[in-house]
């Protein structure tokens, strides 16, 4: 009797067994992992999609892209964009989650509306903000005229403002999403913990540091991973907004890889740049996994 119960119990842990992961595993292996590895191999060859004959060229592609000054500019821009956009997104996200923490009538509607900017695709957001930054029909021109100006020019064409303007579009799309994702975690912090911090007389920032952040650490790290990877790999929005210009003031590694491989048909260099970018994201990912593990320990 005990025996007959034990067998279905152990089987019941996974009704379909490991067969259940086969479709998902196959799709990911064939369409993601295999192409990524082929791409990695390609970076050590001179192969192109059109050419039949190819040779191993060792590190020549990497030497070529590292000698190219645009690559440094592109990675510098991505880093700057990340350093500007991500802290702003996290602070807005946390602040909004704090404001929406306690229930009030209409809170669920407000929470869904936070998703609105993210629902606009990066391409559509690019087209939209191209016009919103326009001196005649845009918001910046309207505000400039309201303050007595003549509309001004588009900040996207100004080398000093271009990257900041791109960062603002990024913040517009991602900060409300961060708030949306952080809200359940922040709401779940028990009121008692917050009251205790308040009784101790701690000002707002200390309450966050002592009572809230430690409780949502894993969630916050996960949102950070999403935001950092998003801004490091920014591509479609910039393609429409500035095309990387003026000059290379808003060039990013993903856009540079795409330009090299697809537009100038330099396939080996394009894949090499895209793998350098992937390595940067994997390094961020490794840091994330490590920090999560520290969290669990």
């Amino acid at each position, binding site marked *: 009797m005990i025996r007959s*119960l034990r067998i*279905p119990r152990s*089987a*019941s*842990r996974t*009704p*379909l067994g490991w067969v*259940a992961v086969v*479709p*998902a595993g196959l*799709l*990911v292996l064939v*369409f*993601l992992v295999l*192409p*990524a590895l*082929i*791409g990695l191999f390609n970076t050590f060859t001179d192969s192109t*999609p059109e050419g039949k004959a190819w040779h191993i060229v060792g590190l020549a592609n990497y030497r070529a892209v590292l000698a190219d000054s645009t690559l440094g500019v592109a990675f510098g821009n991505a880093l700057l964009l990340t350093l500007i956009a991500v802290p702003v997104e996290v602070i807005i996200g946390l602040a*909004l989650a704090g*404001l*929406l923490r306690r229930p009030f009538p209409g809170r*669920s*509607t*407000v929470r*869904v*509306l*936070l998703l*609105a900017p993210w*629902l606009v*695709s*990066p*391409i*559509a957001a690019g*087209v*939209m903000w191209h*016009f*919103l930054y326009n001196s005649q*029909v845009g918001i910046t021109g*309207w505000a400039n005229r309201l303050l007595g100006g003549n509309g001004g020019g588009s900040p996207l064409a100004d080398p000093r403002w271009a990257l900041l303007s791109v960062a603002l579009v990024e913040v*517009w799309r991602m900060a*409300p999403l961060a*708030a949306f*994702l952080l809200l*359940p975690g922040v709401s779940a912090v028990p009121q008692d913990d917050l009251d205790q911090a308040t009784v101790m007389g701690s000002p707002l920032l200390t309450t966050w540091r002592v009572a809230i952040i430690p409780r949502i650490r*894993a969630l916050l790290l*996960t949102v950070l*991973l*999403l935001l950092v*990877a998003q801004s490091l790999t920014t*591509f*479609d929005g910039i393609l429409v907004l500035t095309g990387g210009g003026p000059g290379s003031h808003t060039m990013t590694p*993903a856009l540079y*890889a795409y330009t090299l491989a697809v537009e100038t048909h330099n396939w080996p260099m394009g*894949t090499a740049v895209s793998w350098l970018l992937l390595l940067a*994201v*994997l390094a961020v*990912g490794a840091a*994330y*996994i490590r920090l999560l593990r520290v969290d669990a320990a």
Partner: protein
Amino acid sequence: MSKRLKWSGFWRVVGIVAALVFCLLPIVWTLVAALGLQPDGLRLQGKFTLDNLTGITTFEPAFVSEFAYTLAVSLAATALTIGAAFPAAFWLARTSSPGVAALMPTLLVLAVSPLIAYGLPLSNVEHAAGLYGSFAGLVLASAAVQLPLAVWLLRGYLLRIPRSLDEAAVLDGASGLTVLLRVVLPVALGGVIATGVLVFVLDWNLYLLPTLLISHPPEVLPVAMRDFFAFERDLEWPSAAAALIIAVAPAFLVVFIAQNALENLVFDPEG
């Protein structure tokens, strides 16, 4: 104390209103332009009209077929992603295999990896497999791209469903597939819908993947929009605004319909 509370309530309202203006002003600005109106000082100028919205095919004749093609690709890819992710997430939620703990954050890292790194060679793979430019080729690739995130999200939901539920069904002699579809799915439906909606939006907005995998036509909307924008820089704002409003409408509609499910979205590595 009550005075302090009153003030904190005041600042809370100010903050929430400011956030909503920040989120929605660009979209409302676009909607107003699509309806033929233009802010001038503190008033709206122009005449309300639906002509920009209804006349969208005059400047983009293929708009309707592009819209339909994007919708078909996104729906098929979402169905495939969820269909493959659900059983996988269930196994990962129930197994005690070592390595699952390490696999889950790795899936998330895979989900945020730059598409360009595998998208370029993927177009070669699809050429070699005869899938390049086909509906199936785009659907399979899109489904695979969203799979890591979908599995990660769904597992978070399935961990919350008590084990005893499916264990009891197995004891009653139900087959694996029956347990999954008749016992677990109804309980996990909210999570499946929330995940499906996020995946649909991501699919609907894909740009780089279709650019690399389809030879136009037929084009998907983001690709058509970018091509049009790149080659017609003198595009009028009301026409562009109308195209934008129609192009974002399906994502808004889906989220609006599924808002109850999205309200319970769990985005936490600890489930």
